């Protein structure tokens, strides 16, 4: 396939979960509690895209090809897109934009606190994703800032784990995937350091 089609293709694929949810909503296929389904699914897709974004660097090392990097910003922004939908559903359809109630909720319910922190971590990442912002910050500072994505993925996993009632299988799968991605980075950087030292 020609390289210039690859971006629109990945974009369309990343938009599929959204289309599927809208279709499900319009055709009444989201179950007895569609708002809950929408909230859960958008949250899950935000987490999945965070992890997919974190797969890009290992993919480059593994294949020895750097052109995977061309998808990273888009995938990261899709994580933010699904996180925004998730947040909006909570603010609008769970709390009906009642600010006092929302503040109380963030204070009282630990998993909401963690979810909120997670969203705050994603914000600077999304806001500094443009070329202009990379230029303004400088590559080094920009890269440092974007290490927040590791913390964001970790808090997203924690948020999911805290929400589950008794069956922790699913969040543990995501936590394991994140652990693999982070440990991989650690090993990779150690190796590079020792290679440059010798």
């Amino acid at each position, binding site marked *: 396939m020609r390289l210039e089609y690859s971006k629109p293709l990945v974009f369309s694929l990343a938009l599929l979960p959204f289309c599927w949810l809208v279709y499900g909503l319009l055709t009444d296929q989201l179950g*007895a*509690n569609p708002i809950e389904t929408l909230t859960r699914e958008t949250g899950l897709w935000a987490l999945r895209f965070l992890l997919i974004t974190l797969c890009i660097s290992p993919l480059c090392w593994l294949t020895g090809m750097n052109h995977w990097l061309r998808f990273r910003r888009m995938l990261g922004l899709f994580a933010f897109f699904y996180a925004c939908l998730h947040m909006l559903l909570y603010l609008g359809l*769970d709390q*009906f934009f009642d600010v006092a109630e929302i503040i109380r*909720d963030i204070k*009282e*319910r630990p998993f909401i606190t963690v979810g909120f922190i997670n969203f705050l971590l994603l914000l600077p990442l999304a806001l500094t994703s443009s070329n202009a912002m990379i230029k303004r910050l400088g590559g080094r500072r920009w890269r440092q800032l974007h290490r927040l994505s590791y913390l964001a993925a970790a808090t997203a996993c924690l948020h999911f784990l805290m*929400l589950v009632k*008794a*069956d922790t299988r699913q969040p543990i799968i995501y936590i394991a995937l994140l652990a693999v991605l982070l440990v991989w980075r650690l090993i990779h950087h150690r190796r590079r350091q020792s290679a440059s030292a010798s």
Partner: protein
Amino acid sequence: EDFDGLSSSEFSTDERLTSFESITTYNNFYEFGTDKSAPSALAADFPDPAKPWQITVDGECDNPGVFDYQEFIQPYTLEERIYRLRCVEGWSMVIPWVGFQLSEVLKKAQPNSRAKFVEFTTLYDPEQMPGQRRRVLQWPYKEGLRIDEAMHPLTILAVGLYGKMMPGQNGAPIRLVVPWKYGFKSIKSIVRIRFTEKMPLTAWVESAPHEYGFYSNVNPEVNHPRWSQRRERRIGELLKRETLMFNGYGDHVAEMYSGMDLRKYF
């Protein structure tokens, strides 16, 4: 309909019923999986008609017994009870149950003076209940009531809903319904009813004692660490509504808890 000519009850609410579809496809029944859609997919043929359903009544009583399902329900007149059901997760339904008062069963068993609580046990059969193959909770599921709660006229054993036999996913063939408590107190697919002197250790208390208490009365003032209990989403509605103390049954049941600190005994 499986049940005809059911008498209505003064305890029924006249609120709009939740659809049969929603009641039978949105279920917390971990014996069939932790997903809410799992029970309707896996419990359609539950219980296996080839396996007779027996109910044991024993413990601190003078007239214990083991009954086949038909023999167990035969003495009682079935009626329709339309109750609100409030789940601890913050959603609610209005369900037309078919059943009879638990008090009739308990009286027949003649509890003795040591009978302070009633413990209920769900069937343990991983062959029929695939969710029991993983230890998400300590199987079999157990629940319990104080004896006055169990004797209360609002507390029923239900054998059906919407005039039909109880669907597998809703706790066939017989389940408890305690409308002023969170849904998980209303234990499904009962095989044993036992009078005890000590407070029974219930499944959710055993699993997470800081999150779930023995009483688990619906109480908008006492939050669960994960779910605010002030409001609830009635299934089928967009806006949330205020949660009522004792799920709106306070006039009938509040007296049983007078003088108790409901923050401590949550």
